[in-house]
């Protein structure tokens, strides 16, 4: 489907509840004289999973940034769970994203970062969730490492782990499969399916067709605006 709405019929068949998690109408983003997104519409029902695809530079990450409120669009309307995305704590308790890379705290180990995220979001760091996610993403052995010493692939796993140890209703992931090996991608796809099964909604950008098909995502192809 090109720049359009996700099929609500198919979503309802999968047990998706009514209502939109994300609704984008007439979204336009321009950088100077370059128009990246031109009147894009997108509807992601609650419980659905959508993969934005398309060649480099068509505006996948830009669309995700607009959905998370990290970038103001030049035109159009974006709502997340019926309200405009904002910088309030209430919004960020529902939405978890890897669109932006956090600056990890110096001197805090990988394990301590995950526990910090879990505690700050009101979770119990000793309930096994941190261990489970660390095992899933293969970073258990990095528990005592400082983030500054991690490789780019390990950082990607760490960022995903930090995103998964906290509760959320909507995951906005920018190429979550990048820099992951085949086994990790498979484990990640399984985890995302579990997330959806528990009622979560997923909007992601991806270049890996096998991966987003494994997750069970509906594809929305973005293309470069004409002219």
């Amino acid at each position: 489907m090109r720049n359009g709405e996700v099929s609500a019929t198919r979503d309802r068949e999968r047990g998706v509840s009514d209502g939109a998690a994300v609704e984008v109408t007439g979204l336009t983003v321009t950088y100077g004289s370059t128009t990246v997104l031109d009147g894009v519409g997108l509807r992601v029902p609650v419980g659905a999973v959508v993969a934005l695809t398309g060649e480099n530079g068509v505006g996948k990450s830009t669309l995700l940034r607009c959905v998370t409120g990290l970038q103001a669009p030049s035109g159009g309307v974006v709502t997340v769970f019926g309200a405009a995305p904002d910088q309030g704590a209430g919004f960020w308790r529902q939405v978890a994203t890897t669109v932006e890379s956090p600056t990890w705290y110096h001197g805090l180990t990988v394990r301590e970062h995950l526990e910090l995220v879990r505690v700050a979001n009101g979770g119990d760091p000793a309930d096994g969730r941190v261990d489970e996610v660390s095992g899933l993403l293969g970073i258990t052995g990095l528990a005592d490492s400082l983030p500054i010493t991690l490789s780019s692939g390990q950082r990607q796993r760490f960022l995903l782990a930090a995103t998964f140890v906290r509760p959320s209703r909507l995951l906005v992931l920018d190429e979550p499969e990048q820099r992951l090996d085949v086994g990790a991608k498979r484990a990640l796809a399984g985890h995302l399916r579990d997330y959806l099964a528990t009622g979560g909604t997923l909007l992601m950008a991806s270049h890996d067709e096998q991966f987003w098909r494994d997750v069970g995502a509906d594809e929305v192809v973005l293309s470069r605006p004409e002219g």
Partner: protein
Amino acid sequence: MLPVTATREPVTVPASDADVRRRIRRMRVAAVGRVDPSSVYCVLLAIVMAGVLVGRPLGAVVWPAEAGGPSVPVLVGAALVLLAFLNVLRRTGPLVVTRADATWLLVAPVRRRALLTPALLLTVFTAVVVGGLVGLAVAGRVAGRPAGDTAFAAGLAGGAAAGLLLVLLAVRCQQCPGTGRVVDRLTGAVAAALVVGAAVERLAGGYAPPGAVLPPASIVLVVAATVLPLAAAALVGIWWQLDGWPTHRIVEAAATTGSYADAVYAIEPSFLAEQGARRYWRRRAGIRSSRLLRARRVPPLVAQDLLHVARRPGRLPWLIGTAMVPALVVDGPAWLMAATVLVGALAAASITGEATHADASNPATLRLLGLTARRVYGQRLVVPTGVAVLWGALALGVAQVAGDLSGPWWALGVAAGPAAAVAALYRARASASSIGTIFIDTPVGAFPSGVLLWLVNGVDVVAVLALPTVISLFTARAPEALDWSAVLTQAAVSVAGCLVPLFRRSTARTVGL
């Protein structure tokens, strides 16, 4: 299109140094043009003007008209300058190439010796100049008047020899990171011990070391004459082995000095702090995950700050050392005492500034944590307040013992602690580029105001919130005693300063600082 091919055989003969230099020179000329004679004239004129302007005062500092004999401040000051020079050498390499050379020439078949020789020569030259000046400054205060040529030569040669030994030590540290870590810790501990020693000497009412604390000039000259050739031989040995110098050490030093150059070019001092922090934590080993966060006995960001402080124990000697400084100036002008207390308390409270700066420059982590600005602010205030309270109590308590102060000064230090913590948070949040985008026109070009504002950022806040303390430092001098009402006033102002940001409605809702 030509097919992409792999080189069948590696080049066995390295490019000649002369060819490489000639090619680089041509490329630079093509890029930026030849050196303009007017630029050379301006540089020479600037050097001459600097010599005229600061030559005489510098001469008076290095070689005063009258010698007061050896004293603790002179010896401590000389040692601190040499330790600071060693620190600079450690931070800059000392064997380093530019980032561009590290990227293009280090990985090319070019001889390392040719690349690193300029850095070695510059380091040796600087060490001889700095060491020689320090040696002269000591000799100028110790040698009786009229001082003979022997005293002059001994100061110069002894200082130069000390400078070269520091270069050898720094190069050794660059080769062996383990040795480097030990030397860095020792340098910090010795510097703090020297400051504490100077403060104790002050508390004890002054101590005049015997004239024989330093060896006679003739002996210094003989020792220097022995050390200098040996150090020179060792440096030649290092130069000879430069071809085998490990690449990763040079790349690391190039990245570090490159970021220093960025900080200077962008006039953004926070780059330096960030670079220093990255360097420290990249090398920090032996950390085990703590159970402090898992236990949930303290709020998460307080736990994080506590872990951060506990994992940088090398700062403790500096904290104690700086707390002694007010005792050294307690009998000096009141403005100097006030400035020392304010800046010292601000520096002590800035001990957890890295995390606050990271949160302010990139709030992505706070969004991940889902914490409101109010909760972040409240939690981030706890540890700096504790540190500043202890520092203030120690600084003003010791100053009272050392000087002519009476009354509950230690309590005033405690009361001023939260004010310093609030100011430290303000300071940590800002970078020079974020607080001053206005350019000031100067005869030598436009200059961004950010760096000037950054220098006083936080100091202005602590100056306002610690006004009762400042007023007391000006007025409650002997025979007047400090009154408890001043302490209570300071406590009230400090608490008010802490609470003001919490009353902003937006802080209860938004993420970020």
